[in-house]
């Protein structure tokens, strides 16, 4: 697929991966612009709901960057996301989606080069997988709306 330009959502922890991305930026390292990054305080704080929501709304991939094992600013958040991602991948393969669409990488604040490298690799991999099959289904948007309506209703008014 020549003209496929994947849209990838990235969740990066404030202390390592985001700082690593920052370093990649100030070092003027070039990498493809397909990643839309969201800064979170800790990779362990990423809720599986965020990941599933990104995929259900048509993101072609979800990139998660955290500190190297043992380096978590909050002691063990990166171990937590490691377990969450392992479960989410199992869930995705049962739902017929490629588990490779979710990637977890460890990037320290000093690894600007590595950040650019893993993001480039991931974008290449997603390009090979092709577009997210959940993307652009008219029904889906309606369904999401209906679901959000229902969710609002379910809150006690």
């Amino acid at each position, binding site marked *: 697929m020549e003209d496929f330009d994947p849209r990838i959502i990235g969740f990066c922890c404030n202390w390592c991966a985001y700082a690593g991305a920052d370093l990649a930026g100030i070092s003027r390292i070039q990498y493809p612009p397909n990643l839309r990054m969201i800064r979170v305080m800790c990779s362990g704080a990423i*809720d*599986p*709901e965020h*990941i*599933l*929501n990104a*995929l*259900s709304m048509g993101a072609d991939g979800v990139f998660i960057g955290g500190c190297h*094992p*043992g380096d978590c600013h909050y002691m*063990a958040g990166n*171990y*937590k*996301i*490691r*377990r*969450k991602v*392992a*479960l*989410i991948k*199992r*869930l*995705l393969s*049962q*739902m*017929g*989606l490629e588990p490779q669409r979710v990637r977890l990488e460890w990037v320290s604040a000093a690894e600007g080069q590595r950040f650019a490298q893993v993001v480039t690799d991931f974008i290449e991999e997603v390009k090979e997988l092709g577009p997210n*099959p*959940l993307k652009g289904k008219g029904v889906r948007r309606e*369904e999401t709306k*209906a*679901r959000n*309506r*229902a*969710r*609002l*209703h*379910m*809150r*006690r*008014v």
Partner: protein
Amino acid sequence: MRKLKLAIGLGSTCAGCDIAILDLNEKILDLAAAVEIVFWPTAMDFKLKELEEFGEGEIDLGLYHGTIRTSAQEHIAHLLREKSKALMAFGSCACFGGIPGLCNLTSKEAIFETVYRDTPSTVNPDFTVPKTEVKEGGYLLTLPELYQEGKALPQVVDVDYYLPGCPPVVELIEKLLPIIELMKTGELPPKGTVIASDKTLCEECPLTRENKMISQIVRPHQVIPDPQRCLLEQGILCMGPATRGGCGARCIKALMPCRGCMGPTAEVEDQGAKMISAIASILGVEDEKKLSEEDVEKLMNQIKDPVGTFYRFTLPMALINKRVIKR
């Protein structure tokens, strides 16, 4: 004072919700005194035509139970919405899709292939499958259409109230009686009211939690659980942390793990995602630093059927609610 009109419609259901209403026992007399039942095909001889003859909003309270999988069921849902002042999704199937909602893991074609061709007792060389219309001897015969996916009631029509549970427990159904009394005064409960607890099942669970860490998952038939201790802590997958309470923890009292029939709590959209969080917080925590990526994978592979476990009752309302089938 005039009696309120109550209609009970059904979709793809086991009719356990009807039985649950009958389980009100002597209180069913209070219900019968408070309302006039105008439509309830499971219990009495009602025809769809009778429901169709009502004017818009003439019925005071409509209950709908069951998932919506066929055009006939969708028709009943739309009818009930049109004729009722207030519509309640009754039971887990109507609220979130329920067990029949697990049909989203397969497709209509795959079901037809299995049922009408591949089962060993089937001889069907022409692969004849049900069609919505067939001309036979000058007559047009019709069947409802089977849809590709199952849907919960709020995905099809506007729903006012929810009463989850598979089936809803009698204690919660009893709460309908004061609500009906309230409705007689013309005062309706706020839209979106869920007749259940707002907190998780763990809040009302009688078992004690000591040490929230597990190193492996066991299935209920493999162990005799300690009747005092949290089942999740004993390695049995219990959906309690991600499930709405209000059922009185009756499965837990029989030492069976929660399966999640009450659905997610008020602030949660995706019950399974919350359960993934909960499992990831306790499974394999103790020596997490020593585990390799493969060890973590092996640990999680102990959960054999993630979708069936985490979304047993809520698949159609989940964020990713339909299996991607490549043909």
